[in-house]
């Protein structure tokens, strides 16, 4: 019997790194409670990831297979996940606060008559109960939340929990499940994935972000910087840049966009409104490049350069190229 159950999200034929973050955290929690750690993967391709999950401390991998479970669908996946939870009766269920996690978790929780502690950045166990710390108001404050119902469900913010190798058996248990398709759901007509391999803002390790100071749609200097940093880097934007139509809304960092926590956030031509600072304030290291020495962003930046970004960024890129080529 698994005391703690994590959900292993598969995307594009690969298991996400967030699954290993959950496994590592789940292992810690299960050990604290004196119980086993299980992982659920949905779809027949799930079995191949059992050994990866085992490496991060998973005792049993539940592979759910059945019609309508090969491609993600909120209703059918929620049915499958709820089914395993009801069968295996874990005390704690953890998912990642990814796009899929945000869609799947509340639907599953509602089937079970519970709520999920969403978007946690850390967990502890207090008196046998899970306590999740989560930012609120886009990070303007934090609070601790605990569940009064069973199972205790929570989602973890991607890229925050550490991955720790701790090899366990990872025994595969297959579960056949046919979703009730009398419950209507949507059908996917088209899936357009960005094939450039661009990493999502919420999962990027490095974000190069541009604001009003960019002056227009040409973000090539920032795209260049992100490409020098490599595949874990991506380009973001402030609300001003998105509202001006320079960048797609999916690039927006801030309270009405995405809350991010990369290792490095490079803010170019961003003055630093309250809502933007809230959305990126938990980045590990912040670099600001802005020509206005009074810009609020400098009060949050670890390294600030006062200057014209169109002069500074090319030099920055040159230096980076040299350093990272070494």
């Amino acid at each position, binding site marked *: 019997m698994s005391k703690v159950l994590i959900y292993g999200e598969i995307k594009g034929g690969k298991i996400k790194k967030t699954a290993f973050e959950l496994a590592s955290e789940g292992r810690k929690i299960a050990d604290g409670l004196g119980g086993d750690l299980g992982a659920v993967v949905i779809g027949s391709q799930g079995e191949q990831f059992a050994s990866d999950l085992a490496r991060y401390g998973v005792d049993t991998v539940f592979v759910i297979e059945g019609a309508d479970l090969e491609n993600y669908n*909120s*209703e059918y996946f*929620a049915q499958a996940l709820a089914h395993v939870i009801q069968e295996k009766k874990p005390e704690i269920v953890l998912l990642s606060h990814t*796009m899929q996690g*945000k*869609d799947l978790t*509340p*639907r599953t*929780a*509602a*089937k079970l008559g*519970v*709520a*999920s*502690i*969403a978007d946690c950045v850390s967990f502890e166990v207090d008196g046998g109960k899970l306590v999740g710390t989560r*930012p*609120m*108001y886009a990070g*303007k*404050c*934090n*609070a*601790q*939340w605990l*569940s*009064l*119902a069973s199972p205790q469900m929570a989602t973890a913010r991607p890229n925050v929990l550490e991955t720790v190798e701790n090899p366990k058996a990872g025994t595969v248990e297959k579960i056949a499940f046919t979703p009730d398709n009398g*419950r*209507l*759901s*949507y059908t996917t*007509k088209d*899936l*357009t*994935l*960005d094939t450039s391999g661009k990493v*999502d803002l919420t*999962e990027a390790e*490095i974000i190069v972000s541009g604001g009003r100071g960019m002056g227009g749609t040409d973000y090539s200097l920032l795209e260049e910087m992100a490409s020098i940093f490599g595949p874990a880097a991506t380009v973001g934007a402030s609300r001003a840049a998105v509202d001006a139509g320079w960048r797609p*809304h999916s690039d*927006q960092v801030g309270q009405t966009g995405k809350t991010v926590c990369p290792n*490095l956030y490079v803010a170019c031509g961003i003055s630093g*409104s*309250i809502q933007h600072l809230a959305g990126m*304030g938990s980045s590990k*290291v*912040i670099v600001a490049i802005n020509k206005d020495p009074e810009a609020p962003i400098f009060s949050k930046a*670890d*390294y*600030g*350069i*006062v*200057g014209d970004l169109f*002069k*500074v960024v*090319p030099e920055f890129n*040159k*230096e*980076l190229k040299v350093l990272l080529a070494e």
Partner: protein
Amino acid sequence: MKSLVCLKQVPDTETQIKVNADGTGIVTDGIKYVINPYDEFSVEEALRLKEKFKAGEVVILSIGPDRATEAIRTALAMGADRGIHINDDAINSSDPFVIAQALAAAAKGVEFDVIFCGHRAIDDDFGEAGAMLAELLQLPQVTLVTKVDVGADKKTAVVERDIEGGKEVVEVPLPCVLTSQKGLNEPRYASLPGIMKAKKKPIDKKTSGDLGMVPEAKLQSKNYTMPPVRQAGKVFADMEPAEAAKVVVQALRNEAKVI
């Protein structure tokens, strides 16, 4: 086309949030409240659908204390037809499940082709109520919606949604629950005649008793804290761009050790 729009009143994004002395919540004095930005997209989309079909109704459903009436009035001034205001201390600041239960109970008394919710409220940031409402009403959900195209027969809609690094286009049977994402539309402003008209539009007040529910909290919060204050680091001014760039890039490698 009949839409039910779930709407929450939240602190404006420029609000400086402060935690209260005993850590049980935030200081609410002096906060300017607005319609949750994602709910504004919902109101706009519902109005456009009513306009497109030249018939129907847009009903605003909100949960909150007395002040939430202002947010409902604003939506009515944008053009919505009537409001339902659930105001009950046991529900107002409860967890997403209780909120979804109350929304579901109220929705049962309303005719709708589609329910819109914001994909999350920018105050507590849970982002669960929409999907939970869909489940409790046994309706399909499409979350993070950026485009809605309802078929002429109002039986299905083709909807675009955000996924990681891309877009998904789905066809969903109606009625359903859609959660709005930025990019869906540009919300209109309330016109002066709209504001005048809104004053006369009905807002139906409801308590948990009216909804036939006994709220039972599923989550509990404690220990509200402010995030650690970030100290300003080194600022390089009056330096040649090449020199400043070199110093910072070197510091990222040798001092901050992030590259």
